[in-house]
């Protein structure tokens, strides 16, 4: 019972870490995948923006500067991103312009906007919310007609007409991101250099640079949060194993006395407890890894949200190492207590 509880506690710690890391990686990978799916070569973001911060807009008037001035620009379109929840966004798109980038959305049901209050969603979002074309979708405190459902992996999960979103959110002529398509992608660096001369304070990235920014290291808040969860994990493992091993040492006082009577040194006794601790931590880590598949299934397929959890294999080792370190720290005090046990007192223990 004690052993089972310890393994379960350690597994929860491992699952916590794997779920957090998996969520971070999953969400960022998904963002990067959708960005790549747009088919743009260059991204232009407002001067004070950061990777995950879509709350800062810029004037749409800079688009003509890009298209008219640069000879290799085949198309450029701006989108407005409006947050609707913690990690939920609605994106305003000028469809004819957007289609010039990569042919536009590939519809699995329905088609493009028919009116100003039409919405398009990707099939992932539609499946999660059981939406069909023609349904009414409530967003931004108003009803929208679902005009089309498209294949996921492009731009966003919910798309509305750009002009409508600009009006509804008081962002007339404002956009959040500009996507630029070149006639020759090999000239990306060259074009960026030239654009940087004209759009001095703006942030310009090649698509490759931009998608590489979608990593945990680029998001300080996520990194700090991960560290906090890991620290909590180590603490939970430490406390659980401390209690468990302390109880074990008390329960086995007499057995420890027997081992000492047989000639076991303090190191031998300590070694037995530490090996048992490693076994607990390894068993807890394996269970934790299995549980992370359960959390992935729950987050990706059961909960209706836009969260994506990935399985990050390298973190199996890191989470297991964290669990082992926490458990070993927890085993030190009970282990030393056992190792220092007086053999005669231990043998007399009832």
């Amino acid at each position, binding site marked *: 019972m004690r052993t089972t509880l310890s393994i379960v506690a350690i597994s929860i710690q491992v699952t916590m870490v794997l779920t957090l890391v998996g969520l971070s990686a999953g969400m960022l990978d998904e963002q990067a995948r959708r960005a790549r799916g747009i088919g743009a070569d260059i991204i232009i973001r407002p001067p004070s923006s950061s990777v995950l911060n879509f709350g800062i807009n810029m004037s749409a008037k800079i688009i003509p500067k890009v298209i008219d001035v640069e000879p290799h620009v085949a198309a450029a379109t701006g989108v407005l991103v409006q947050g609707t929840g913690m990690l939920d966004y609605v994106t305003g798109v000028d469809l004819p312009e957007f289609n010039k980038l990569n042919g536009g959305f590939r519809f699995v049901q329905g088609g493009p906007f028919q009116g100003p209050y039409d919405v398009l969603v990707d099939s992932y979002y539609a499946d999660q919310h059981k939406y069909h074309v023609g349904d009414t979708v409530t967003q931004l405190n108003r009803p929208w007609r679902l005009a089309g459902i498209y294949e996921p992996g492009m731009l966003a999960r919910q798309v509305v007409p750009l002009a409508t979103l600009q009006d509804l959110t008081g962002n007339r002529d404002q956009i959040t991101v500009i996507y630029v398509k070149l006639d020759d992608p090999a000239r990306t660096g060259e074009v960026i250099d030239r654009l940087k001369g004209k759009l001095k304070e703006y942030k310009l990235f090649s698509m490759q640079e931009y998608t590489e920014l979608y990593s945990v290291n680029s998001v300080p808040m996520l990194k700090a949060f991960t560290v906090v969860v890991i620290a909590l994990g180590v603490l939970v493992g430490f406390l659980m194993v401390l209690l468990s091993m302390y109880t074990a040492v008390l329960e086995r006082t*007499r*057995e420890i*006395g*027997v*081992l*000492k*009577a*047989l*000639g*076991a*040194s303090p190191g*031998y006794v300590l070694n037995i407890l530490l090996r048992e601790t490693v076994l607990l931590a390894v068993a807890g880590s394996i269970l934790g890894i299995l549980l992370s598949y359960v959390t992935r299934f729950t987050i990706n397929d059961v909960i209706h949200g836009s969260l994506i959890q990935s399985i990050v294999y390298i973190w199996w080792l890191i989470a297991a190492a964290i669990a082992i370190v926490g458990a070993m720290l927890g085993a030190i005090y009970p282990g030393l207590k056992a190792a220092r046990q007086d*053999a*005669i007192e231990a*043998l007399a223990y009832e």
Partner: protein
Amino acid sequence: MSDAPIISIRDLRKTYHVGEVDVHALRGVNLDVQRGEFVSIVGPSGSGKSTLFHIIGGLTPPTAGSILLDGHDLLGLTDTQRTELRKTTVGFVFQKYNLLPTLTARDNIEIARHIAHKDGPLDPKFGDVLKLLGLTGRLDHKPRALSGGEQQRVAIARAIVNHPAILLADEPTGNLDTENSTTVLGLLRDLNQRLGQTILMITHNPEAAAYGHRTVRMRDGCIE
């Protein structure tokens, strides 16, 4: 039997400090035990039998006096040296068997070898000892599946598996019924006679004491 005693104790004293009170558990014990001898130690509770047992077994150091055990002077030994002594020179049999409950009988015996860094296969001659102890068919059972008598026989096997110079038995029949007591005592005598195993046995029971070559009586920390 050789002339040099395997245990030679002179004016052995042991004082425990209990709070602010000094308890004189041994007050000048003198005892010689010859190699191959089977000695019973009897005496009332508090007479110092167990303390003497613990000192001879290297579980606690004496306060004063001299105690030579198979050539080792126990007075000056460090904790580590006494631990080493327990691996090789003495074997213990306890009243409550003290087998490790999660291990089989075989593993309970093997762990004593493991602690003494003897990890190879069991000495074939030890198979005869196991046969003598009647354990051949019971080695793969855990203690909870063994009777009290069987558990005590496993404990005896564990105590002698490393061929200790001295077997120390503390009330080995204290938890057994008459039939099993007779069996265990008979086995101790057999081990003594067949293998020349030196045995020191603490007991309250005069009938059990009679299995030894001689009986030593203790009272108030001294040998009478």
